[in-house]
C-alpha cells in the first residue's frame, strides 16, 4: 500500500488538453466522460419515449409537425410508421438500460467514488479504465449511427428475441439495424467487463491503510457487488449474442426452426428460440441489479449523511446486497413463465423470486429507520434518495404479483409489467443517479448546484413519474399489452383513452423537467457557488481531498482510516460528524470502550509507516 503511494507521489498529471481531458487515464475525468455521455443518452432515450407516448396518448393526432425531425418515419397521414414505433420502444429500452443506467450510472460513480472513497491514487489500471470508456464511446457511436439508417434501428424489443430479431424478412429493423445493435453491444460488453475488472481489483487491492472491508462505505460495497455481477453475467449475454450473430449471418440454426415466411419454409432446422431467452435472461435479470445496486449504495450514503445518523444495520445492508446479488442469478426464468415452461419449474422460480422480497424489505426498513428521528437535511440529493426508496417500495410490491407464475399469466407483457420495472428499476435507479450527481457535484466540479432548481426538479419528476406509471398498473391489469402500436381497434380498451392521455402528458412534463436539471448542471459548472471542502459535513474520504483534486487525488500522503464511515451524531462528540481519518485518540470524549482500546493500535500504525519509509 505504502509502496504504491510512494511510486505515485509527486507524479502530477501535466499533460496537454488531449491527454488531460480526452484520452485521460485519470479516474475522475473518465467518470465525468461517462456521466456526460450518459446524460446525452438519457436525453435521446427520453425523447424517444415522448415520441411513442404521443402515439399512445393521442392516437388520432396529426403528427406531421414531427416531419422535420423524423422525416420519412411519419407517414403521409401524419402518423408514426408502425415499424418505427417498434424501433422507438426497442431503442428506448436499450439506451436506458445499458447506456444510461449501466454505463452512465456505474461508469460514473464507480469510477469517481471507488478510488476517492477507498483512498487510492487512481484505479488499478488507468489504461484499462481509459479503454473501458473508449469502448463505450465506440459502442455509443455505433448505436447512434443505427438510429439514422434507412431500414431503421433494431425493432425487435430490447430483449431482441429471435426469430424476430434474427430474420430481416420479419421486420425491417432486423436488417442492418440489428447488426449494428449486436456490434454495439459487443463493444459495450467489453467496456463493461474492463470497467468491472478494474473496480473489483481496486476495491480489493488498493484500499488505504486501515480501510478494512468493514469500514468501507456502502457505496463501495454496492459498486463491488455490481462489478461482480457484471463479470459473471455479461459474458453470458456475449454468448447469446454470438450465437445470434451466427444465426443471422452464417446460416446456423441455434434459435431458428420450422419457420415459414410467405408460405416458403426457411432452411433452418432444429433451433430453439427459448434457448435464447434462457441465455438472455441469465444476463437480463442480474442486469436489473447491475442497474439498481449502485443506486441503492449511493442512497445509503446520502440518507445517512443527510439524516445525521449512522446507517441503520450496516451489516444487514451489506448482507442483503450480497443476498440480492446471489439470488439475481437464480431467478431468470421468471421472465419466461409463459414460454410453456414446466409448471413445477415455474413454482421453483416463483419461490426464488419471492425470496428477493426479503433482502429488499431489509433495505427499505433500514432506510426508513435511518431517517427515523434523524436531523433531516432536505438537500436535493436527500429528496431524490427518499424518492428512490419510495419507488423501490411501490415498484417492488408489484414484483410480488408478477413474480408469481400463476398471476403472471394475466400480467405478462402488459403495462403492469411496464409499470413494475419502470418504477423499481428505471425510476429508482434514475433517481439514485440524479441524487449522486447532486451530492457529489461539489467534488466533481468544485461548485455547488442550485438547491431551488433542484427542489423544482425533484417535485416535478417525483409526481410526474408516479403520474406516468401509477395509471399503467390499471391499464395493465385490464390486459392492455405492451409494445402495441395502436389499441383503438379493441373496444375493450376504449375506456383507457383518458388514462393513456394522462400518462402521456405526465411523461412529457417529466421529461421536460429534466431540462431544469440539465440547465442547473451546466450553469453550475461555470457559475455555481464555490463549494466548501466538505459541503455536506460528510465522513467519507473524498471530502479530505482539495477542492479540485489533481491526478493522484491527495497532494500529500493518503489519509489513514481509523473508523467506519457513519459516525454521525455520536453521543459526546464535539460535532455531529467524525470523518473516517480522525483517529480515536483525538476523540476521547465520544469513544466507546472498545474504541478506546483501539488507540493503542493507532500508535503502532504510525511507527510502522515510519519504519517502512526508511526501508524503501
Amino acid at each position, binding site marked *: 500500500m505504502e509502496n504504491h503511494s510512494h511510486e505515485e507521489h509527486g507524479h502530477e498529471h501535466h499533460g496537454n488538453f488531449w491527454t488531460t481531458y480526452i484520452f485521460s487515464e485519470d479516474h475522475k475525468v473518465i467518470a465525468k466522460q461517462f456521466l456526460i455521455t450518459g446524460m446525452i443518452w438519457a436525453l435521446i432515450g427520453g425523447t424517444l419515449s415522448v415520441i411513442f407516448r404521443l402515439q399512445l396518448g393521442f392516437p388520432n393526432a396529426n403528427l406531421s409537425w414531427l416531419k422535420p425531425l423524423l422525416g420519412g418515419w411519419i407517414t403521409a397521414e401524419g402518423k408514426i410508421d408502425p415499424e418505427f414505433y417498434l424501433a422507438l420502444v426497442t431503442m428506448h429500452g436499450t439506451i436506458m438500460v445499458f447506456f444510461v443506467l449501466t454505463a452512465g450510472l456505474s461508469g460514473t460513480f464507480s469510477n469517481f467514488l471507488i478510488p476517492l472513497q477507498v483512498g487510492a491514487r487512481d484505479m*488499478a489500471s488507468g489504461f484499462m479504465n481509459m479503454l473501458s470508456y473508449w469502448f463505450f464511446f465506440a459502442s455509443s457511436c455505433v448505436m447512434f449511427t443505427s438510429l439514422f439508417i434507412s431500414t431503421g434501428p433494431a425493432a425487435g424489443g430490447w430483449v431482441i428475441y429471435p426469430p424476430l430479431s434474427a430474420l430481416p424478412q420479419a421486420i425491417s429493423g432486423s436488417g442492418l439495424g440489428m447488426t449494428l445493435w449486436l456490434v454495439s453491444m459487443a463493444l459495450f460488453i467489453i467496456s463493461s467487463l474492463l470497467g468491472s475488472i478494474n473496480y473489483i481489483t481496486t476495491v480489493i*487491492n488498493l484500499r488505504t491503510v486501515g480501510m478494512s472491508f468493514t469500514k468501507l462505505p456502502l457505496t463501495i460495497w454496492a459498486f463491488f457487488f455490481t462489478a461482480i455481477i457484471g463479470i459473471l453475467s455479461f459474458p453470458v449475454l456475449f454468448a447469446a449474442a454470438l450465437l445470434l450473430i451466427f444465426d443471422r449471418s452464417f446460416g446456423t440454426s441455434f434459435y431458428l426452426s420450422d419457420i415459414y415466411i410467405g408460405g416458403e419454409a426457411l432452411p433452418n432446422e432444429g433451433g430453439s428460440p427459448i434457448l435464447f431467452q434462457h441465455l438472455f435472461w441469465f444476463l437480463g435479470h442480474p442486469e436489473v441489479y447491475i442497474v439498481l445496486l449502485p443506486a441503492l449504495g449511493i442512497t445509503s450514503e446520502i440518507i445517512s449523511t443527510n439524516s445525521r445518523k449512522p446507517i441503520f444495520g450496516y451489516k444487514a445492508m451489506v448482507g442483503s446486497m450480497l443476498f440480492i446479488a446471489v439470488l439475481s442469478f437464480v431467478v431468470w426464468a421468471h421472465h419466461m413463465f409463459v414460454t410453456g415452461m414446466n409448471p413445477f419449474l415455474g413454482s421453483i422460480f416463483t419461490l426464488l423470486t419471492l425470496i428477493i422480497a426479503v433482502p429488499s424489505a431489509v433495505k427499505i426498513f433500514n432506510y426508513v429507520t435511518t431517517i427515523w428521528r434523524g436531523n433531516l437535511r432536505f438537500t436535493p440529493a436527500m429528496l431524490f434518495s427518499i424518492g428512490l426508496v419510495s419507488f423501490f417500495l411501490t415498484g417492488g410490491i408489484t414484483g410480488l404479483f408478477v413474480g408469481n407464475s400463476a398471476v403472471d399469466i394475466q400480467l405478462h407483457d402488459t403495462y403492469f409489467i411496464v409499470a413494475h420495472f419502470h418504477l423499481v428499476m428505471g425510476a429508482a435507479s434514475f433517481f439514485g443517479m440524479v441524487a449522486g450527481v447532486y451530492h457529489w457535484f461539489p467534488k466533481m466540479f468544485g461548485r455547488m448546484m442550485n438547491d431551488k432548481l433542484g427542489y423544482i426538479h425533484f417535485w416535478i419528476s417525483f409526481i410526474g413519474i408516479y403520474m406516468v406509471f401509477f395509471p399503467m398498473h390499471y391499464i395493465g391489469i385490464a390486459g392492455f399489452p405492451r409494445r402495441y402500436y395502436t389499441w383503438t381497434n379493441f373496444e375493450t380498451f376504449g375506456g383507457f383513452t383518458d388514462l393513456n392521455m394522462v400518462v402521456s402528458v405526465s411523461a412529457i412534463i417529466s421529461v421536460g423537467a429534466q431540462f431544469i436539471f440539465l440547465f442547473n448542471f451546466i450553469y453550475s459548472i461555470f457559475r455555481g457557488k464555490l463549494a466548501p471542502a466538505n459541503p455536506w459535513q460528510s465522513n467519507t474520504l473524498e471530502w479530505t481531498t482539495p477542492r479540485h483534486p489533481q491526478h493522484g487525488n491527495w497532494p500529500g500522503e493518503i489519509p489513514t482510516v481509523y473508523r467506519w464511515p457513519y459516525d454521525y451524531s455520536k453521543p459526546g462528540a464535539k460535532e455531529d460528524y467524525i470523518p473516517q481519518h480522525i483517529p480515536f485518540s483525538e476523540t476521547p470524549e465520544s469513544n466507546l470502550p472498545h474504541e478506546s482500546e483501539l488507540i493503542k493500535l493507532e500508535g503502532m500504525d504510525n511507527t510502522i509507516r515510519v519504519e517502512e519509509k526508511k526501508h524503501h
Partner: protein
Amino acid sequence: MENAVDLRLVEEPKKTLAMNPKKFGMWLFLATVMMLFMSITSAYIVRQAEGNWVYFELPPSFYITSFIIVVSSITMHWAYRASKRDDLAKAKLYISITSVLGLAFLVGQFIGWVELVQANVYLVGNPSGSFLYIITGLHALHLISAVVFLLIMLVAVFQGKVSAHNMTKMEMCTTYWHFLGALWLYLFVFLILYR
C-alpha cells in the same frame, strides 16, 4: 537484518491483499472467459435435451491435440520454474517448446475441423455440429491470444527481461496458459460425454 525481520512480523496484520493488482485482474478476466464457456456448454445441454440432435464423432486429431496441450502445460511450468531460478538457458528452451506446442495445437484443431467436414459435420446444419464449431472456434480464438502472449514472453525471455525479480508477466502468462489447457480438457471431456 534483525530489524527487518521484526518489521515483517509487525507489518503482517494490516496488509490488505498480497496479490499484485495485475495478476488479480487477470484472474477476473479468466472468470469472464469461464462464464462465456459455461453459458455455451449450458446452452448445449439445454438444446440437446430438446431432441432433434445429430450424433457426431469427435475427430481423431482432437485426441492428439488434447495430449499436446497437456504436454505444453508441463513445459510451460518448467519454463516458469526455470525463469524463477534465473536459469535463462532452460527458460529459453522450455518457452520455445511451449510456443511450438501451442502452434501445433492450433494446427491440430484446424485439422480436426477438416476431419469434421470430411465426416459431414458442418457449421451450418443441425445445431450439434454448429455448437461443436463454435465451442472449438471460441477456444481456439482464446488460445491464439495466449500464443501471442506466449510469443511476447518468448521475446522477453530471449532479451533477458524475465528474471526472478520480474516474474509478474511470466506468472500471468503461465496462469493463462494453464487455464486455457484446463478449459480445453473440460470442453473435450464435455464433448465426449454429451454428443
